[in-house]
């Protein structure tokens, strides 16, 4: 679901970037206020979960792939604002270091996966949880399913609007060439079935595990934030070691082709036959490890290494962020020392 560079026109990117700016600002304020300093590194771990989840690519017959996002899981664990921030940062790390999702399209990707998804999913989760308090996991699953599908729908609409708005004199699309009639079904087929299911499993499995292994994490109290840390780190390590499974899916996700690949796609009945002009000479950015591969390393090892580096970067970001937050001193606690 990561929209690559140059699939959206620069003006579209600018619109989404501008739309996200106040959201990010608000998210930072909310997180500063609401998340206790001790819990901040946990938020980094949450972002790492999302990052790792997005590395587990699942293949679909027909050659396309997709993955879970985990934004709804984060929203349930930390609240939607924190989830927004965490997923945004995970996406940023992916775009900057691993070339997954375009830098210019960052705003749009965040809009889909870091804004629409956690807020919509969380709203559903909360409504359902109120209706049936005994079945929290079902509520979470439903929220996750709706969340990822809404995000995919948004991405599909963004793709589909491009050929309507931006064409050259010859009628060739400048950017993404597929209209809504193609992009929506193509995106949604995968997400309504396999990827949606993956998201549900990813969310409920981890949530269920955490409820059992580290219930203190899910509680609102800050004091025990460190209690379940060992289990969490264990889970992260497990996920990291598992990431090479994502390599089993050999295709490319719908809408994430390289420009050369794109010319051969035949969603319009026959192969497209040309590379959209805006893509050919658009903005290009060389990520450090494009596609999670590291030159000179076996693919799966490179994948693990990427996972470690990405995870650590995310945790570091939030740890550093936390160290800048001033904790008010408690002047009224009685002093035991004296």
């Amino acid at each position, binding site marked *: 679901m990561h929209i690559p560079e140059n699939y959206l026109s620069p003006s579209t990117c600018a619109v989404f970037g501008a739309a996200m700016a106040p959201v990010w600002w608000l998210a930072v304020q909310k997180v500063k206020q609401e998340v206790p300093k001790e819990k901040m590194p946990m938020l980094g771990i949450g972002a790492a979960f999302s990052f790792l989840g997005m590395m587990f690519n699942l293949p679909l017959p027909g050659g396309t792939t997709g993955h879970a996002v985990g934004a709804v899981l984060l929203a349930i664990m930390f609240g939607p604002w924190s989830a927004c921030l965490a997923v945004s940062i995970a996406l940023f790390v992916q775009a900057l270091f691993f070339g997954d999702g375009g830098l210019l399209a960052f705003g749009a990707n965040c809009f889909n996966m870091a804004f629409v998804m956690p807020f919509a999913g969380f709203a559903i989760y909360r409504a359902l949880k109120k209706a049936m308090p005994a079945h929290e996991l079902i509520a979470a699953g439903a929220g996750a399913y709706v969340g990822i599908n809404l995000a995919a729908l948004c991405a599909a609409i963004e793709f589909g609007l491009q050929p309507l708005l931006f064409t050259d004199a010859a009628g060739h699309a400048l950017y993404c060439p597929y209209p809504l009639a193609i992009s929506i079904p193509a995106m949604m087929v995968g997400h309504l079935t396999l990827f949606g299911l993956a998201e549900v499993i990813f969310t409920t499995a981890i949530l269920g595990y955490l409820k059992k292994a580290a219930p203190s994490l899910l509680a609102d109290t800050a004091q025990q934030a460190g209690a379940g840390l060992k289990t969490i780190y264990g889970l992260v390590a497990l996920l990291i070691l598992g990431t090479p499974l994502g390599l089993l899916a050999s295709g490319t996700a719908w809408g994430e082709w390289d420009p050369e690949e794109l010319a051969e796609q035949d969603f319009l009945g026959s192969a497209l036959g040309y590379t959209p002009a805006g893509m050919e000479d658009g903005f290009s950015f060389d990520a450090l490890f494009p596609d999670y591969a590291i030159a000179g390393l076996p693919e799966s090892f490179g994948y693990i290494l990427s996972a470690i580096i990405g995870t650590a970067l995310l945790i570091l970001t939030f740890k550093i962020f936390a160290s800048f937050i001033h*904790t*008010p*001193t*408690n*002047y*009224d606690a*009685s*002093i035991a020392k*004296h």
Partner: protein
Amino acid sequence: MIDFDDVCYAYDGEPVLRHASFHIKKGETVVLRGPNGAGKSTLLRMLNGLIYPELGTYQFCGTEITAAKMREHRYAKWFHQQMGFVWQNPDAQLFCGSVAEELAFGPEQMGLSTAEVKSRVEDALELLGLAHLRGRAPYTLSGGEKKKTAIASILTMNPSIWTFDEPLSALDEKSQAWLCDFLQALKDAGKTLIIATHDVSLASTLADKTLTIHADHSVELSA
């Protein structure tokens, strides 16, 4: 003149002052007492605008002292002229090449005329009995002489409020008696004095009020 309203301060989350509220009027002599580590030196540093309350407000003559206010150059300079600080360890306080320079440092900065600076320095040297040491480097003086030089260097700025941290420590009996007299003279001249000390007799002879910082870092002002 000095207004503390519910001031709290902590070093790295460790409270050192808790909910300090008191008022010091012009011309009062306040003795600051409390066990080691209670926060006396910290309070003096705050009074001198070196650190700022984490909670609550500190007002000096109706102006709240904040980091932003102290970044205003002119105000900060005026404030530091109004408030003199005599450190416990005079070594840290003396940085000029000779005693005379040390004494002239303050008034010269204030832009007084050369003649006036000179007369102030001479008066102070005379008053503190340092005249024969004027050319010596402060670093080479004995403990008592250093203390006197430090006091003289503040005196030439003529602040209206004097803060002292343990003024009597490391002084011999004669110097202690002299310093008590000097403090009394400052008091009679209408200066406001704030003195942190462990010395009971000084507290009883001089103090109009006693500001006590308890071991639990609560602050109490009593007459």
